[in-house]
């Protein structure tokens, strides 16, 4: 709960001078930004959201974690790095797994949600929580040499469940550990995700409600895909929703939010 403010400090004016001069943002947009809170849901390759430690194999793409952070909880490492960049922002690291029992209360405390997770149950959980809490969701993903970005549940647009009423068969789901990912591709998608969060938070608005950005890094090509509108028969955001609370997402998806491969090895 950040307070609305009437003016920027001198330090803020110095720091943000290059974007304060933009008529699209201006002091007004920057003030909106300054009182906006964003929940970033991250998911390591193997373990549910926000519960993952920094691993060597993360470093080629996750530039918030320096080498010295190996073994630290990711949320703490990220907050420490961000604090070095900008100490005026408040960072709250949650070193915990997002679950149906905690997600809604957490999402309610924030203005915008960014989903950077890596598994299907978490994607549904975050989207459903955003619908129930009435928060816009900027969702980005990357695999191999491709990336996708959509803004859900924003200005009357569709939610994740409108697009994907049924989860994919578990055997068709590939994660970064199995499928691989070129280090800089999540970096590109993450920066564009940050842009859309910033545009929504500052009042500029996003062009990716009911649009998907598709990126092919091999070709160097981005495409904007027009998506279906919000579905009147969507189970959670439709006219007569059948879901009014969060459910068991691992059962729904037939897969766990932890790494499929690792589970197989354990069996």
């Amino acid at each position, binding site marked *: 709960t950040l307070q609305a403010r009437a003016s920027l400090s001198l330090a803020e004016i110095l720091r943000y001078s290059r974007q304060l001069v933009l008529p699209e943002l201006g002091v007004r947009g920057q003030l909106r930004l300054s009182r906006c809170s964003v929940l970033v849901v*991250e*998911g390591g*390759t193997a373990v549910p959201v926000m519960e993952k430690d920094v691993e060597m194999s993360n470093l080629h793409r996750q530039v918030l974690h320096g080498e010295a952070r190996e073994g630290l909880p990711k949320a703490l490492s990220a907050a420490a790095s961000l604090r070095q960049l900008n100490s005026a922002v408040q960072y709250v690291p949650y070193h915990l797994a997002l679950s149906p029992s905690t997600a809604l209360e957490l999402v309610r405390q924030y203005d915008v949600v960014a989903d*950077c*997770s*890596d*598994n*299907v149950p978490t*994607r549904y959980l975050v989207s459903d929580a955003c619908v129930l809490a009435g928060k816009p969701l900027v969702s*980005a*993903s*990357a*695999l*191999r040499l*491709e*990336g*996708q970005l959509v803004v859900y549940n924003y200005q009357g647009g569709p939610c994740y469940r409108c*697009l*994907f*009423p*049924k*989860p*994919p*068969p578990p*055997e*068709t*789901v*590939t*994660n*970064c550990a199995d*499928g691989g*990912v070129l280090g800089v591709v*999540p970096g590109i998608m993450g920066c564009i995700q940050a842009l859309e969060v910033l545009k929504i938070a500052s009042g500029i608005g996003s062009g990716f409600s009911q649009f*998907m950005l*598709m990126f*092919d890094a091999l070709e160097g090509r981005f*495409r*904007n*895909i*027009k*998506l*279906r509108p919000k579905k009147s028969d969507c189970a959670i955001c439709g006219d007569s929703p059948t879901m009014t609370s969060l459910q068991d997402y691992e059962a729904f998806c037939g897969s766990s939010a932890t790494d499929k491969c690792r589970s197989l090895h354990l069996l």
Partner: protein
Amino acid sequence: MAAPMSLVVEFGGGAELLFDGIKKHQVTLPCQPEPWDIRNLLKWIKQNLLKERPELFIQGDTVRPGILVLINDADWELMGELDYKLQNQDNVVFISTLHGG
């Protein structure tokens, strides 16, 4: 009698791995009595392009959950889904949604 039709059919997001890893296919559909729609195209793809494990691409008479179908850069839901009547030079994309991060 529908004339032969040229399409660009693309696979992405990993769906191309069921098609020898080839993302972009220049396709010519043969003449047939009824017009070509997506329903027929799916059958044709299954018989002519799909290399392995068809159940990871098609379930029943439609694509499996988690694959988005795009017709000329628009979600097929906006275009009539299986019933969309293909036009010459259409671009049809089958894209598996990504979850990695």
